[in-house]
């Protein structure tokens, strides 16, 4: 892929930061709702939480995760960083891919809870395991996204085997 001109690169960077940080914030909101849904004694509050979680997941978290993955790919392949040259870029990409995959495979559970909440009044013991796991998954996702944010900011050094090879090739050309 060709290196992007500075103007387009800035735009792509803004899109990547906005989608990634937005994803992090949306997951934090999702987790807060999952805690309320699990611990609240107010049935109306519980119902509202799961209904909101379904909508946040469908209209915010899933689109932002896909946008983050896509803009991250553009950002790495369209700049000298590359996708496979630096460990931090590669690990961040793998973590984003994994988080997106797990999110997409778990939307069924989120939608299920949303549908149940829409049709019935949930007591504190109904679907308890599922509700605990939704909260745990949100916590795990939050950790992964925080790690990704840290990797983006610190950019820990280290070239992959591919990065070393490219570096040698570039030095030979000079």
């Amino acid at each position, binding site marked *: 892929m060709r*290196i992007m001109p500075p103007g387009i690169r800035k735009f792509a960077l803004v899109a990547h930061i906005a989608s990634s940080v937005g994803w992090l914030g949306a997951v934090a909101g999702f987790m807060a709702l999952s805690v309320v849904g699990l611990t609240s004694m107010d049935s109306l509050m519980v119902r509202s939480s799961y209904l909101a979680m379904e909508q946040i997941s469908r209209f915010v978290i899933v689109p932002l995760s896909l946008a983050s993955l896509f803009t991250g790919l553009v950002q790495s392949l369209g*700049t*000298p*960083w*590359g996708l496979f*040259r*630096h*460990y931090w870029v590669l*690990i961040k990409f793998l973590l984003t891919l994994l988080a997106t995959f797990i999110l997409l495979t*778990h939307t*069924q*559970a989120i939608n*299920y809870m949303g549908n149940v909440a829409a049709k019935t009044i949930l*007591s504190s*013991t*109904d*679907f*308890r*395991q*599922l509700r605990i*796991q*939704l909260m745990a*998954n949100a916590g795990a996702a939050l950790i992964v996204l925080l790690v990704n944010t840290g990797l983006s900011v610190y*950019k*820990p*050094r*280290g*070239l992959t085997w591919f*990065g*070393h090879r490219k*570096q040698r090739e570039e030095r030979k050309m000079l």
Partner: protein
Amino acid sequence: MDENRNHETLGAGETMIPDNVADPEGMPRWVKVFGIIGVILAIIFVILHLTGHGLHEHIPSADHPSSTDAK
């Protein structure tokens, strides 16, 4: 610290790899730590799923609406 600054910034020169630093060819320690944590988490994930603690195990199927999880 200068090495870090060179490494982090993506300036007009576009040199991602600092010329004055010979990057060791081996895998950095932090990558190894990440790898070990990743393997441990993957093992825990597989064990949880094999022992029936995966998320989908708690979703009642259409054929069996009366799940043990549901009241």
